[in-house]
């Protein structure tokens, strides 16, 4: 036995050495190759695991033409941002990562993202995409897709688009439905999905200046906001009951698939399920409760260059001249079914009536604020809306929301 244990112990030491010590070194070794070799070098690109195949052809083409090896690494969407922020300063991060524009405030505050020069090609993208890619006056992101919510209508139940919010409810009830409209909420509310109605009352979250959203100009609590709160209360539990915090994403989806709801306010990510469920889906603009347009948030997806990349020149070149082409943007569109950010690709993609529908709503969309102050808003926003829906006093709740948000922003 004694010798056996000794052997085992020696083996264990070997394992420790391999696991512990070698792993400390191996990462560095990989990274050391970046830019180290005379010709080429390697570009490491993190992409959402579902879009690896869409980016791969562009990467192969780039490797072949420029002699720079492009390594595409599929990452889990849920952890990609935090991983990027934590790993860039250590030198272990990638050269490029895929992401969304509302990360910009956080990435820039942490100093992990490098500016990107789109040059003359900036004019080739949709305006909303370029606005979203710009933070404090500097462009940081190569946009590839624009995403926003819209109304999914069951065209078999209600053949015509609604002209206003009340018209939508009336049309649905005429079709024999008790609760014709569903939108995902949940116990803590879901301000993202309620925002179009809020903007219809003229209450954006922040005012804007020439550098984009202005964190010192909180517009949430203005008169329009109070009107919106009153309207929301009247549509909630103690009123018309069109909003319900017990309805989460899955319940809303089920109601639409079962045909108990004819209108579903949701994003392109749910269209596939609705079409597969045999629903004759039409995409409408969001019916406004006032006469003003109901503008949803636009989320813009794109690519960022790491501030610690050893290969910035190749990274810029790859993004601007290879990812920013119609072909690659259309490949990415195929992978995700979201409107491309490059105007020419967006036009091609809009031959599909569903994409065209979302693009029409997107024309009214506003980029979701990327400024860090937005974090303070999310914290209080949904819960206030949820309590208004559940019958709390709308005016008092909304005023407290505005005060809490202002206090949280000032405390930063």
């Amino acid at each position, binding site marked *: 036995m004694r*010798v056996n244990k000794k052997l085992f*112990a020696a083996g264990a030491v070997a394992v420790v050495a391999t696991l512990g010590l070698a792993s400390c*070194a191996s990462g560095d070794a990989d990274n050391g190759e970046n830019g180290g070799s005379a010709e080429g070098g390697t570009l490491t690109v993190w992409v959402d695991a579902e879009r690896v195949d869409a980016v791969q052809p562009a990467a192969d083409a780039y490797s072949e033409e420029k002699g720079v090896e492009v390594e595409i690494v599929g990452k889990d969407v849920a952890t990609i941002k935090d991983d990027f922020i934590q790993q860039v300063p250590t030198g272990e991060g990638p050269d490029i990562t895929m992401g969304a524009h509302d990360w910009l405030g956080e990435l820039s*505050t942490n100093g992990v993202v490098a500016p990107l*020069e789109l040059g003359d090609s900036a004019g080739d993208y949709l305006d909303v995409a370029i606005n979203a890619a710009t933070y404090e006056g500097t462009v940081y992101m190569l946009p590839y897709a624009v995403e926003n919510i819209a109304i999914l209508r069951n065209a078999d139940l209600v053949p015509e688009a609604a002209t206003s919010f009340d018209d939508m409810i009336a049309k649905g009830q005429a079709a024999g439905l008790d609760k014709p409209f569903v939108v995902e909420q949940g116990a*803590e509310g879901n301000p993202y999905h309620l925002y179009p109605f809020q903007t219809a009352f003229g209450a954006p979250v922040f005012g804007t200046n020439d550098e984009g959203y202005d964190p010192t100009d909180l517009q949430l609590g203005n008169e329009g906001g109070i009107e919106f709160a009153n309207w929301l209360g009247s549509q909630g539990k103690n009123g018309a009951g069109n909003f319900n915090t017990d309805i989460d994403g899955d319940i809303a989806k089920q109601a639409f698939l079962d045909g108990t709801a004819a209108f579903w306010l949701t994003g392109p990510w749910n269209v596939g399920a609705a079409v597969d469920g045999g629903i004759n889906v039409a995409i409408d603009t969001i019916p406004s409760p006032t006469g003003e347009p109901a503008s949803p948030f636009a989320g813009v997806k794109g690519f960022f260059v790491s*501030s*610690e990349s050893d290969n*910035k020149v190749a990274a810029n070149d790859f993004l601007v001249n290879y990812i920013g082409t119609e072909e690659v943007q259309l490949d990415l569109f195929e992978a995700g079914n979201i409107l491309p950010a490059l105007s020419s690709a967006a036009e091609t993609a809009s031959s599909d009536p569903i994409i065209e529908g979302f693009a029409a709503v997107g024309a009214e969309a506003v980029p979701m604020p990327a400024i860090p102050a937005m974090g303070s808003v999310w914290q209080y926003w949904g819960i206030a809306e949820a309590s208004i829906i559940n019958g709390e006093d709308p005016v008092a709740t909304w005023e407290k929301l505005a005060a809490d948000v202002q*206090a949280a922003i000032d405390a930063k």
Partner: protein
Amino acid sequence: MSSMIDEDVAADPGADRKPTKRQRQAAKIADAASGSMKAFVVKLVLMGLVDAIALYAVFILALQREWIVLGVIVAVTVFVNWIYFSRRRLPAKYLTPGIIFLSLFQVFVLLYTGYVAFTNYGTGHNGSKEQAVSSLMAASLERVPDSPTYQVTVVDQLGTLGLLVTDPDGDVQLGTMEQPLAEVDGAEIENGKAVAVDGWTTLSFGEVISRTDEITELAIPASDDPNDGALRTPDGSNGYLYTSNLEYDEAAGTMTDLSTGTVYTDIGTGAFVAEDGQELRPGWQIVVGFDNFIRAVTDPRLAGPLVYVTLWTFAFALISVASTFFLGLFLAITFNDLRMRGRKAYRIAMILPYAIPSFLSALVWAGMMNQSFGFINQVLLGGASVPWLTDPFVAKISVLIVNLWLGFPYMFLVCLGALQSIPDDVQEAATVDGASSWNVFRLIKLPLLLVSVAPLLIASFAFNFNNFNVIYMLTNGGPRDTGAPIPVGFTDILISMVYKVAFTGQTRDYGLASAYSIIIFIVVAVISIIAFRRTKSLEEIN
């Protein structure tokens, strides 16, 4: 490690059984080892492997200039060799691998958490000062309004980089870091772009890539006037004019905003701060001493919620331990009764909740407890509207119910094992002496049971005290306390509240989070030590 445990477990009861195959092998090696060369050779090979790996690590670390890690590896390797080639130091031969594992996976993690608690690591203080400065400088570049795109070629003269620039009118200019752009003659033009000029070597794309660092730094003044901006090329083939609105003075440690004249100074808080208190972001990581601990206990936003969250945390942990223990014990006694048929099938059914990942069960429960659409209200209660997760008091009950469901199989297993290890003759003797079966349980079985189970109850308390999964997945701390200034809810326990305070919105405050987790660790450790002291008295029964 696990194979060692397996071996020990197998070895203990093996004393009065036939030796297993592995034991026979071990005995063979042991016999062979006494006096033979074979074992020595095996040891030599294994130690050789260890040394080879260490040497490889040293080699790579030297290339990366990681001197501290390198030093540690050399010291550990020398130490390990000394131990295993020595004729004595037998205890060390047994202990060393375990201690190395312990330091790597436990002590290091603890020390690192401790270290982070004393830094300002978090959003805005993410990297080194150097990285913050370069990031600020990069972000401060602004393209000169309405300036055109220039076609550029990167050229080299004896190691000095220059840009050969073709402006939109077709004029060709050359410049370096020191020499502002000036017209040159005789450049070779290809498709309207100057690609080479006498006396300079044109860099191929591969060479441009390999000299990325120099080219990113390359800024060619457009003229002698710095306000005209400098030409930079982000991709090696197009150039743009930029002006910078920040100036860094390394000696004075200041950043000056050139457009407003504001001076931001490094005053030792891990960021450049203006006189009016405004900070430039990003800042960098520094050691801040006890600041995080002071903030953790003096944060005025926490004053109200902290009291009831702490009370609820204790209540949650204690009730969870008690309820799971008693249900587990009851079931263990029931299923340990020899008169029961099909015990094995029941026992397997009992283990099922334990076999499903707890976060998954919590999510399923959250769906079932939905007020309007959940299975419990709709089907079991026939359309009732019990606010399972949305009423402050009922939500607490729901959390306890779900945690009971998740936790009792563990207690069931533990109690079943402990019950079966209590010898039957004790019970027989008591029955003969005329004790009632309740008294047998209360006065004999339970104390004997507690001797082995009490430490596990303490461990279970510590686990539930920090049972983040259940709270986060089931209610996320909700329903929210709308009166509190932080997004805390009525079912939040300390650890989930800390998570919300340290990681709100886009802010990640790792320093504060580490400080909190150390405070919570101390609380749990103190409670556990006191409890362990008390359970010592139980052991005197034996």
